[in-house]
């Protein structure tokens, strides 16, 4: 049966709940007949063949009543579930339509979302709008899918009851009611196949609360690593998956220890044990509610087993600094350690596709990071202030991820060997919201391996890593100093994460000699390429 947005908007789910309530009352009246059915027994009152016939007749009435009770309980349960399912589906649609209206989109009866605003000249705004277009479309689509599922399941259940296929057994009427209630559960709506973040999010919110709990308990693998699912649900699902592991590896042990030490303050947002190295995405704080979220991607050599605790400490310190700058409640701030990829290790250096000297590993990781970032944004009804910070090889992963449309508001590159681009315009970041930090003595930050050295990228804002008397922060040196507690670089990251640009400390010094050398070589390379191009176009014999 085709279901339009108009049909779904006309649904009044409270009528299903009212029907369930009325029938529950009828069910209670039916169950109360147990005394009469017992009192009608002639066992011990009438023996002999006639008495046996009378008792057989009574038992037929009891069986028939059991079926009536079970059918009633089944319909009551089915209606309760359908009422909630219909309400959820309708709410997803109503919210999507309100969102569409606020953003200047129109939704037609078939569920198509149309952009009725003239296109923006700003490419970032265009990408952002396309993302919203997709998200709203996905929500409308999934609302209709959930509504169809609700209707099909309820119609199927009513049909089964009408055919007399609900068996109440031959026991007590209360037992028949229990059997019927169990029959009234609907099958789970399976997750969208190949869907986007918006599909998954709307699918999740189209489920009833009980179905969400069933999925966490019985199918945690559906949602544990799924972008677009709320963080709390992912966390609970991943805890289920974590508990399934018999003999944990060193990485899993480190993870279990950390989660046990902070049961309510960490969120396990992804867990992948399939590869050589454990992959984990760990949230500090509440990603479903925090106004400010910073996603940090570490670099070369990082492992869960060896570095999880240290990175967790860094994020805790960073969040404390953000809160101090912001002055708001602690719940406003959250940070994520994104180890959703396995960073290249030292022994990978000669392994094609894994070596830190090439960008192959970063390219495959970037797609996953982009999906995760999109999911942070797409899993929430509001629009959190979302920042990313990539350190070392992680800055390359971050830069490549930002080539996708992700909803990220701030991008910070720390000790970066390159962001994978010569032009910040390639990254989906609002203009003026790309930040670069390079500590003195950071040789990796001088490497300029992947795209133009970030020290010279146009529109990049360069922030200080030196001591600041104004903020009472210390200077950092070398490649591993950026998150040091009390440092200027940590202060700057906290200012980025908490949306306080007025607190940023700019790097006002001249570029370092290695940076200047690198830039000179890059410009020579550019000049050479332009000369080649010129000669190729104007000198026909040029090879």
């Amino acid at each position, binding site marked *: 049966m085709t279901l339009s947005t108009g049909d779904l908007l006309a649904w*009044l789910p409270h009528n299903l709940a009212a029907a369930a309530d009325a029938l529950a009352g009828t069910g209670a009246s039916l169950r109360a007949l147990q005394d009469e059915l017992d009192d009608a027994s002639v066992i011990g009152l009438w023996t002999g063949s006639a008495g046996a016939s009378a008792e057989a007749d009574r038992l037929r009435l009891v069986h028939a009543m059991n079926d009536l009770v079970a059918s*009633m309980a089944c319909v009551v349960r089915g209606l309760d579930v359908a009422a909630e399912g219909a309400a959820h589906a309708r709410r997803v649609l109503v919210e999507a339509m309100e969102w569409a209206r606020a953003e200047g989109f129109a939704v037609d009866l078939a569920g198509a979302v149309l952009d009725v605003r003239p296109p923006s000249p700003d490419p970032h705004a265009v990408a952002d709008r396309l993302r919203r277009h997709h998200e709203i479309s996905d929500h409308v689509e999934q609302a209709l899918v959930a509504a169809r599922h609700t209707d099909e399941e*309820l119609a*199927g259940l009513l049909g089964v009851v009408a055919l007399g296929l609900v068996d109440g057994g031959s026991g007590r009427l209360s037992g028949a009611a229990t059997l019927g209630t169990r029959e009234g559960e609907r099958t789970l709506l399976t997750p969208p196949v190949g869907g986007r973040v918006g599909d998954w999010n709307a699918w999740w919110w189209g489920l009833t609360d009980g179905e969400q709990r069933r999925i966490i308990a019985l199918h945690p693998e559906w949602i544990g690593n799924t972008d677009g699912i709320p963080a709390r649900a992912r966390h609970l699902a991943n805890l289920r998956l974590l508990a399934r592991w018999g003999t944990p590896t060193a990485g899993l042990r480190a993870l279990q220890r950390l989660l046990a030490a902070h049961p309510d303050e960490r969120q396990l947002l992804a867990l992948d044990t399939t590869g050589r190295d454990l992959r984990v995405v760990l949230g500090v704080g509440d990603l479903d509610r925090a106004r400010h979220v910073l996603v940090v991607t570490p670099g070369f050599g990082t492992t869960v087993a060896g570095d999880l605790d240290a990175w967790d400490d860094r994020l805790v310190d960073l969040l404390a600094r953000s809160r101090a700058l912001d002055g708001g409640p602690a719940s406003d701030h959250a940070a994520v350690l994104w180890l959703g990829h396995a960073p290249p290790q030292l022994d990978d250096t000669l392994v094609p596709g894994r070596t830190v000297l090439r960008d192959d590993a970063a390219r495959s990781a970037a797609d996953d990071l982009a999906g995760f970032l999109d999911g942070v944004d797409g899993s929430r009804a509001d629009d959190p202030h979302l920042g990313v910070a990539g350190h070392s090889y992680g800055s390359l992963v971050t830069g490549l991820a930002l080539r996708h449309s992700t909803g990220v508001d701030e991008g910070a590159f720390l000790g970066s060997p390159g962001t994978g681009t010569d032009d910040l315009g390639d990254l989906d970041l609002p203009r003026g919201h790309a930040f670069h930090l390079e500590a003195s003595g950071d040789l990796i930050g001088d490497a300029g391996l992947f795209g133009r050295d970030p020290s010279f990228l146009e529109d990049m804002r360069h922030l200080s890593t030196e001591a600041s008397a104004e903020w009472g922060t210390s200077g950092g040196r070398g490649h591993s100093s950026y998150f040091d507690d009390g440092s200027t670089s940590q202060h700057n990251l906290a200012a980025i994460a908490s949306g306080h640009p007025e607190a940023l400390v700019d790097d006002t010094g001249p570029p370092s000699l290695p940076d200047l050398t690198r830039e000179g070589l890059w410009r020579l390379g550019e000049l050479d390429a332009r000369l080649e191009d010129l000669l190729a176009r104007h000198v026909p014999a040029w090879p």
Partner: protein
Amino acid sequence: MSNDAGFGVRPPALRDAAGAIAGAAEQLGALAPASALSRIERGLPGSASAAAARDLARVWRRGYAEWEAAARRHGVALRAGADDYEAVDARAAARLESRGSRDPLDR
């Protein structure tokens, strides 16, 4: 009233049993579950569920009426059984009494 050879019966208790099942029939007859199903159409207008609810309402009306009728018949049968046994008993007693105070061995 009992008999080791094949049957035993307590007619007053049978009437109580008949009253119980008749009471159940009466209570069931007072219920109208099918009417609540009409709310489904109001909740999900034009849906497959609304059509299914109409079918189920018909099935329930018939099913509840059948149970009620069967229960009433059962109650009537129990009561009739009690009456019949009492009647037979009374007839037997009357025949015996009609013999007066004669010595049963006096032929």
